[in-house]
């Protein structure tokens, strides 16, 4: 485990790893070596980094099909992730998951789902198990704004609040569900207020203020370990890339480049990086490039699973 001189350096390292890994995935993608749809979280990485920085190995995090950031921030192995994207036997699910179902149970990465919202109650179930097992671990469930429209979102928060379960719900509100903007889906842009009516602390972050999110979540999770019950945060953010695939798509007309430029001007990867000691930043960047290069080589050199492995793991 690398030691960093400051919280900022640690968060930067987490963000930069995801940013650079996804940029490399985007570069490789046209070669068709990656055998999986990819949903890139470029621009949104800071949220998972800020929140997961407070988690221990025995805590759980659940993400979505846009889950590379959650997987890596929680300690998921980069080699296993890259190999999984390549469909290789050395992948985190031996080529059965692709990018959309990343998992690393040993690191507390709950398996991710490609059906929007589906992972939310599963994360709550992990929190129920923690309570029943008398552990003081916690769960963080990451989700997008679209998932809050699913019935199981409200059902899950109600149940978690009722049983005072140790779970933090984190909505990464990029104001898009695939290509549909928020105003075509919500009657009122008051998600945080709605959630507060379940009787749990609910906080909104309109800006990509990674340190403010980090500080807030630190307090929330400390309280949660001493039976404070669930909490909720909503982080407004921006998806730089298309819903699925390796490209930007501002030219498609469903959203404006102006909006994108406003967010890009506040890119946490850049601003946080600029705040670091130059030498430390250079070392972090160098280590990340080396690890990504190694992961790509690992994935390319790994074998595909043999056809007869098709029938493995149908039943436990």
């Amino acid at each position: 485990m690398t030691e960093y001189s400051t919280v900022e350096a640690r968060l930067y390292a987490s963000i930069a790893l995801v940013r650079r890994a996804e940029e490399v995935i985007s570069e490789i993608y046209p070669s068709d070596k990656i055998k999986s749809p990819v949903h890139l979280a470029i621009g949104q990485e800071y949220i998972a980094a800020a929140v997961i920085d407070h988690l221990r190995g025995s805590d759980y995090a659940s993400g979505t099909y846009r889950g590379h950031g959650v997987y890596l921030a929680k300690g998921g192995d980069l080699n296993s992730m890259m190999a999984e994207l390549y469909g290789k036997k050395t992948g985190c699910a031996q080529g059965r998951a692709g990018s959309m179902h990343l998992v690393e149970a040993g690191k507390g990465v709950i398996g991710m789902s490609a059906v929007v919202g589906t992972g939310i109650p599963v994360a709550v179930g992990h929190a129920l198990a923690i309570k029943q097992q008398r552990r003081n671990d916690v769960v963080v469930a990451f989700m997008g704004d679209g998932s809050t429209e699913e019935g199981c979102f409200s059902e899950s928060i109600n149940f978690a609040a009722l049983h005072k379960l140790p779970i933090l719900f984190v909505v990464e509100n990029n104001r898009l569900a695939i290509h549909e903007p928020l105003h075509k889906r919500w009657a009122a842009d008051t998600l945080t207020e709605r959630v507060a009516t379940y009787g749990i602390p609910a906080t909104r972050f309109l800006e990509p203020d990674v340190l403010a999110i980090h500080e807030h979540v630190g307090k929330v999770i400390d309280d949660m370990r001493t039976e404070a019950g669930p909490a909720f945060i909503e982080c407004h953010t921006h998806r730089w890339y298309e819903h699925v695939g390796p490209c930007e798509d501002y030219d498609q007309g469903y959203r404006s480049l102006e909006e994108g430029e406003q967010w890009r001007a506040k890119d946490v990867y850049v601003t946080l990086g600029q705040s670091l000691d130059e030498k430390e930043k250079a070392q972090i960047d160098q280590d990340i490039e080396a690890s990504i290069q190694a992961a790509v080589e690992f994935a390319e050199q790994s074998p595909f699973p043999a056809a007869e492995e098709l029938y493995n793991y149908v039943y436990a």
Partner: protein
Amino acid sequence: MSTPNTSRLLKYFDALREGAEQAMDADSSVFMMGLDIDDHKGIQGSTKGLVDKFGPERVFTTPLSEDAMTGVAIGAAMAGQRPIHVHIRMDFLMLCMNQLVNIAAKSHYMYGGTVQVPLVIRTMIGKSWGQGAQHSQGLHSMFAHVPGMKVVAPSNAYDAKGLTMQAVRDNNPVLIMEHRLLYGTEAYVPEEPYTVEFGKARVLREGNDLTIVGVSNMVMEAMRAAELLAEQGIEAEVIDPVTISPLDFDTIEASVNKTGKLLVVDNAWLNCGFSAEIVARVAESENISLKPAVKRMGFAPTTCPTTPSLEDAFYPNPKTIAITAYQLASGKQDWVPADDQCQLAYQTQFKGPF
């Protein structure tokens, strides 16, 4: 199998409760959740008293949120617990379909064997007294269709307990399909814990003239029909598959090879259903030398009505099963059993072969 002197006659719902109780005694990670399981009725007695014994942390009701509650049970199972999620009617499982099909059944595979979902779903088919369209469905084929799910259908109290205990031990999602009309039936049930093996059919009655495969309470109705047939000199072999998935096809295959005639009586519609699966496997089998004569019975291809005059025509019953089996076995249409004999089956308690 236990020694007979520790058995006593026990009702199906008591056997369900005892199986869960003994599973919870044996393993502190087992817990039970479901709407109304802790109320004064206790799911027609099948969960009664459990909250008093194990407390509200291990036995608790849920909000009316079947979708999320199924996900919660799955998540708890992934994290090392062994939930039993109870639904008082199978129709309500439609609200759980996404979690059961997309997560529970697939997780072990989709996550490369690194995750297990030892989840038990208890659910009950209703029938009669106006249960109607949304309280009567036998939807086992939908679940058995999906790799990763196991589906079992106890037809008697002995299996109700033994399958419950086996389901809790299994490391996969297991759906236990119960039947309301079987709740009051009695069988000899050992007092001590035991399990009933999955993937092992039971030959309840041997015969050479035709094979009848019954599902859930249709086992009981087929047994009554077999008694009526015996009075006509026709010996039916009655098979209870016990587990829908995995299916013990070998036992069915051996019987059909012997009798050359097969009647499948499902507790469900026929279209794309479990009865079609059995017949298809018989047709594909390379071990059945002669092409058997085959018939299927099940729900009428309609929605289930509430009024008795229509509902009577919706379900197979001992009379229609006997008539169909008689024609299949003898090739003749010269016998119809008397109504009073056929009605006995609903009232006569099935005590099972144990």
